């Protein structure tokens, strides 16, 4: 059904790059030339045959750090996005379908959460709670789900008044069928485009948190944390900080290339077969 020749080139680039990131993350211990916390050389050594990307502020191999960093970054971002989407979309759709006090209560609650800047909210919550992966994912996912809730509710409210939804209600269908079979497939396009963006926001948010010292704790580091570790080198003309920053940008672009392509396919009302 999926013909590789028919995938547009930008999407193909996106797929290849994203796949590379994912492979690096999954097989990190086998790919990385050195250990994550292993000090192998001098501080901020330039790129060389021994250390392809040079070494970092403590003399650890930057390439190995990047590969392990991909693992942490992707793991947290993927789980946080998955959480925010399932939570946000299901609550948003339910609010649209049930309406009434359920909708009012949820919507006001979300307004309340959104009225506090996400970063400040995240900082406060994380500085109180013990910093580990689970709380990090939960905090990021729940904070992000407010945006997804707003979007999916708005989309579902429009779909909910369509005749085909009324027809399903007349047939006597339960809310499960209406939410997952009537509304979800039709709300997928805006949600998928949002998914690409939200995933990247999750990566950036995690990087911000780590940069501020509240995210992933040393000696582990995600890419944002690595920018922080190496930022002082920039003053001395050492590019070590730019490499993780570049990786974040590259990931952002390639994920969105894939999301755009998926979006194109899901918008087709003819099952994508022309």
């Amino acid at each position, binding site marked *: 059904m999926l013909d590789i020749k028919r995938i547009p080139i930008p999407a193909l680039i996106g797929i290849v790059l994203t796949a590379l990131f994912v492979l690096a993350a999954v097989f990190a211990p086998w790919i990385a030339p050195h250990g994550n916390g292993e000090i192998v050389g001098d501080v901020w050594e330039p790129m060389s045959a021994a250390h392809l990307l040079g070494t970092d502020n403590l003399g650890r191999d930057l390439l190995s750090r990047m590969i392990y960093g991909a693992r942490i970054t992707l793991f947290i971002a993927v789980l946080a996005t998955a959480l925010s989407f399932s939570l946000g979309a299901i609550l948003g759709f339910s609010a649209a379908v049930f309406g009434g006090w359920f909708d009012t209560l949820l919507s006001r609650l979300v307004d309340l959460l959104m009225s506090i800047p996400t970063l400040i909210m995240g900082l406060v919550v994380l500085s109180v709670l013990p910093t580990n992966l689970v709380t990090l994912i939960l905090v990021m996912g729940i904070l992000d789900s407010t945006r997804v809730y707003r979007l999916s509710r708005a989309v579902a409210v429009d779909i909910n008044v369509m005749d085909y939804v009324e027809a399903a209600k*007349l047939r006597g269908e339960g809310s499960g069928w209406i939410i997952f079979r009537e509304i979800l497939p039709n709300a997928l396009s805006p949600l998928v485009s949002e998914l690409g963006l939200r995933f990247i926001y999750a990566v950036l948010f995690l990087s911000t948190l780590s940069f501020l010292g509240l995210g992933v704790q040393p000696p582990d580091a995600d890419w944002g944390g690595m920018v922080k570790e190496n930022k002082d080198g920039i003053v001395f003309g050492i590019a070590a900080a730019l490499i993780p920053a570049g990786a974040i940008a590259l990931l952002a672009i390639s994920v969105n290339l894939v999301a755009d392509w998926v979006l194109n396919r899901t918008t087709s009302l003819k099952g994508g077969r022309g």
Partner: protein
Amino acid sequence: MADTKAKLGQPKSGLLLDIRNLRIEATVFPPGEPPKDIVLVHDVSLTLEKGKVLGLIGESGAGKSTIGLSSMGYGRGGVRITGGEVILNGRDILKGGKDGFRKLRGREVCYVAQSAAAAFNPAHRLMDQVVEATLLHGTATRAEAEKRAVALFKKLSLPNPETIGERFPHQVSGGQLQRVMTAMALCSEPDLIVFDEPTTALDVTTQIDVLAAIKDAIRDTHVAALYITHDLAVVAQVSDEIMVLRHGRLVEWGGTRQIIKEPRQEYTNALVSVHEIEHQEQKPGTSPFLSVKNVTAAYGRSHIKVLKDVSVDIYPGQTLAVVGESGSGKSTLARAITGLLPPEQGTVTFDGRALANRLADRPKEDLRQLQMIYQMADVAMNPRQTVGTIIGRPLEFYFGMRGRERDRRVAELLDKIEMGKGFSDRYPAELSGGQKQRVCIARSLAAKPKLIICDEVTSALDPLVAHGILELLLELQKEENVAYLFITHDLATVKSIADSIAVMYRGEVVRYGPKGKVLSPPFDAYTDLLLSSVPEMEIGWLEKAIKGRRMASAGN
């Protein structure tokens, strides 16, 4: 043709519009295939003299709007004029370039759209929009233009012509808005107006007023017009000549009388004779299986009752038609019966027991017995489900059918609606309008209901396609002994399908009984208005109908 010319008494004058071998193309982008050009209009030629009206008629996709708009050099939505000449007032406007078009549009040629409600900018007052084109072209000062506009409002018999221009579009009714739009087109004193289905979206009772107003305005201002519609009876009232189009090709072109009385082409003949289905009225049975008793309903906690004390009965295997103009409460009656809008007072009894008022309180079995078909088949089907899923779902849901058994029954139903098994994998977007409505019929039949509520099911379809749907419904009624509650504003449809009729007016049933009795005199004032407003394919019908009316329509 000669006689109509004489009758209208217009000064004999030269050619205004001469379209020669017009060819219009568009590029389509089928997903996964290279884009390709398709021809929408194949070498169509036409001429129009000053002060004459040419009717363009055909089903949707015939290219009538495309040809009409080409007279102002406009191609809608990426449509390109790739060949031929459009000669207006002696010059080929296609050679004029963008500047030429700008000088032409709104000055020499004006346009009246189908949906005036969508064509007016809701943020500006009517007067500002009516005089806009005149002021832009600098042909009159604002004061002059407004004076002209008021005179046109008067001519188009709009209420309060002096002050109606101060209102916003949402403050006037649909019929009035359509007339304001006509005034807008006439205001810059153009030579040609393109009317694109100006009355199609209106009720019959409103349509007749708008039609008369347009006709008078055309006569008095000596403007020429292209009148685009799919309703032959309407076009017969206003045009001197009629051009029949199909698939972007000319079928027949002739005087109005010749086209409607002596069509030469088979397709024209089919269009002319489309409405005639002979349907013998059945005697009401001994006991109705569904009775609506003294139902009163309102939306929200409003004091305005949309239904007032409505009582009707439906007999097994028979059709009750509910007729009335928009806002008369026809669809609300359907919503009350189905439980979507719980009535405030009154009951709906089914098989001798009262149905629960609210949809949520009704058992599955009751829901199965009452099915519904909607006006807009496009939005009544989930665009992400295949035809097989759409028809198969009631089978799964009500009868627990699965797998092969279900597929077999889906194939049977597809067969019943005269569509092949191959349609089962298609998505709604891959069906034509008529096919979509057929799938909706199959979906409701799948539940094996006793009653199907048909809410304006043929209103959005071309006459020929609608005809096919009506025949199918009658056929299925015979086979399955299903009853219909048929909601419509089209009396021709009622005549072909109903056994009994309820006429509704402002929420009340004003006339109710077997078809023969309801449709024979003496009539009450509203039924008379409704009956006399249905356009007949007869020259001079409009004048006769206006003269013979006993009351003005409510929604004009």
